[in-house]
């Protein structure tokens, strides 16, 4: 019986997704309309990319609340550089910038000797404010638009709204990123080092696993993915306000935790995060279709986050009763 419970818990998310989809389809037939499905697929872009990056930080035993700030900063800087550096130059700069923001987090955490998730939480929360205010200062409060640019940024437009065959470009980007990250996590030594670091930092260190390097890696990945998410985001809506990243950290953490990756670190998977994001997006979609206000959606997400954390904790507590 206990085993059935364990299996159910593992696949709970999948079950919930299917259940929710089914329920929504019955209650609100618009759910299965092509327009809505396309809408769902499009929403996958930015959130899933950021969440994939967040997955690594959490597997590594830490947390990153700075993604909102990173997104803000990368979005406005990248758009502003399309003119001077050209599209490719701006793209690369944006990605590098995001990675640097992430690396700075790691350096701060390492030099402070922070070993708990709580310490990382506060430090990255502070950095989010810092990065966000730089974004605001950089733009002077204004929003950048594609239509202000001399030449229409076709590459970015393609990223945001283009298609390759039947799939949207952003979906393809997501698939490529997922594949790379999954392989990295499960098949490389560096990925293994990250998992071990999250599993037991002390034991990993004593076994010669490169713990400090892993910590730098997880935050850099998170920063890079946040940058990628930012680019997809502003490419889609063709504008970048310096507050464009608001709320991403919450949704990302929510997606990761709901997907089944434990906040305690060590165990987890990017595939689970994909399911988590799917559930969050479906939930948003359902609530939208049912006419629930966006604020209540926010509240609902907060409630689910609290519930998911509590559930995650229960699993651990029970798991240790051996």
């Amino acid at each position, binding site marked *: 019986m206990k085993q059935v419970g364990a299996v159910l818990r593992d696949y709970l998310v999948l079950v919930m997704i299917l259940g929710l989809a089914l329920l929504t389809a019955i209650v609100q037939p618009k759910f299965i309309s092509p327009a809505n499905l396309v809408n769902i697929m499009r929403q996958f872009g930015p959130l899933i990319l950021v969440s994939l990056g967040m997955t690594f930080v959490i597997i590594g035993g830490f*947390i990153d609340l700075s993604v909102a700030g990173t997104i803000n900063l990368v979005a406005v800087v990248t758009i502003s550089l399309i003119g001077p550096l050209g599209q490719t130059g701006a793209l690369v700069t944006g990605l590098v910038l995001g990675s640097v923001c992430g690396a700075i987090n790691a350096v*701060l955490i390492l*030099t*402070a*000797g*922070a070993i708990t*998730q*709580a*310490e990382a*939480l*506060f*430090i990255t*929360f*502070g*950095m*989010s*404010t*810092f990065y*966000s*205010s*730089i974004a*605001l*200062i950089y733009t002077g*409060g204004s929003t950048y638009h594609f239509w202000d640019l001399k030449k229409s940024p076709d590459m970015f437009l393609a990223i945001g709204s283009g298609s390759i065959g039947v799939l949207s470009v952003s979906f393809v980007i997501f698939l490529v990123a997922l594949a790379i990250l999954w392989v990295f996590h499960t098949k490389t030594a560096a990925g293994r080092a990250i998992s071990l670091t999250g599993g037991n930092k002390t034991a990993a260190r004593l076994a010669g696993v490169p713990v400090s390097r892993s910590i730098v890696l997880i935050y850099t990945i998170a920063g890079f993915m946040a940058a990628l998410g930012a680019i997809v985001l502003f490419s889609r809506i063709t504008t970048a306000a310096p507050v464009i990243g608001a709320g991403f950290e*919450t949704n990302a953490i929510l997606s990761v935790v709901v997907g089944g990756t434990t*906040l305690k670190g060590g165990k987890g998977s990017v595939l689970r995060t994909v399911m988590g994001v799917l559930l969050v997006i479906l939930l948003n979609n359902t609530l939208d279709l049912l006419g629930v*206000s966006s*604020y*209540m*959606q*926010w*509240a*609902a*997400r*907060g*409630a689910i*986050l*609290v519930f998911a*954390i*509590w559930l995650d*904790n*229960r699993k651990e*507590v029970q798991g240790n009763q051996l």
Partner: protein
Amino acid sequence: MNRLYRLFVQQKALVAIAVILAVMAFSGTEFFSAYNLLDMLNSSTILIILGLGVTLTVIAGGCDLSIGGILVVSGILSIQLQNYVPLPVALVLAVLSGTLVGFVNGFLVVHQKTEPFIITLGMGLLLTGVAQQLSDAHPVPATNPDFMNISNGYQFGDGMFTDGQFPGIPNLVIIMVVCFVFFAWLMRYTAFGRNLYAIGGDYDVARYSGINVITNKWMTLVISGTMAALGGVLLSSKLNTGSAIYGDFTALVVNCGVVVGGTSFAGGVGGIPQSVLGLLLFGMLDNAMNMLSIPSWYQTMLKGAVIVAILWLDSYTQKRKRETV
């Protein structure tokens, strides 16, 4: 050299305040005018009221990041409920909303043994969403002059600085002082307060000494929630509006102010006077930056940098205490 370092670390707030005072002394602004000092005190009061409750949670070894969310919900409720019930009832209900949330927080953190940092964060986000829903994301204006007078009124005067007459003491300051005295007394002279120090200092030793660690820690979150709600009511009164936007940054600033004053996240150290000092620092920082006409985004950036620096230092001093890396 070591003594100087220890002094700097233990009295971070005093050192920082000294720095600000020194800088402002040469700034040629009206910083040291009676008007400004009073204004500065006035604007720190809400932070301090919030900080009083948070201090309890931190001393007991936890924290409360949901205060921002509690603040905005109660602030909005305090105005909206006036449409349905008399003013005093509306105020009490608004404050009780915080008590209720604190109770739930206590359940999750203490009874269910969940990590306080992240779960109170989640709670805060939930409440911010609720606040936005309640207010439809628009500031809710207050219309009742009695309500507005709560925070904006003065005793023994009318708040004017004409002809060098005594301007009186703002109600907010009086409320804050009363709360401060109560909490300072609570932490220093009651069994409850002293037990919190024990719980934060060494959970097991406290437990072995027969202290009811669960109930006491639970209470800290209930109190923190109540104070956050009180702060929300007072803030709405002061600004004459209830708005959902004040939540985000507040939790971070208050928890940090408490730490900078000397109440470490490690638990068991610090106190009410220290926390107040730390929060005054932030109030002073805000005021000084305004006086120096620093644009608001630079202010936020500077504050963010200060917060990170403080937290970094807090972790670093913990690391030095540990023998191994």
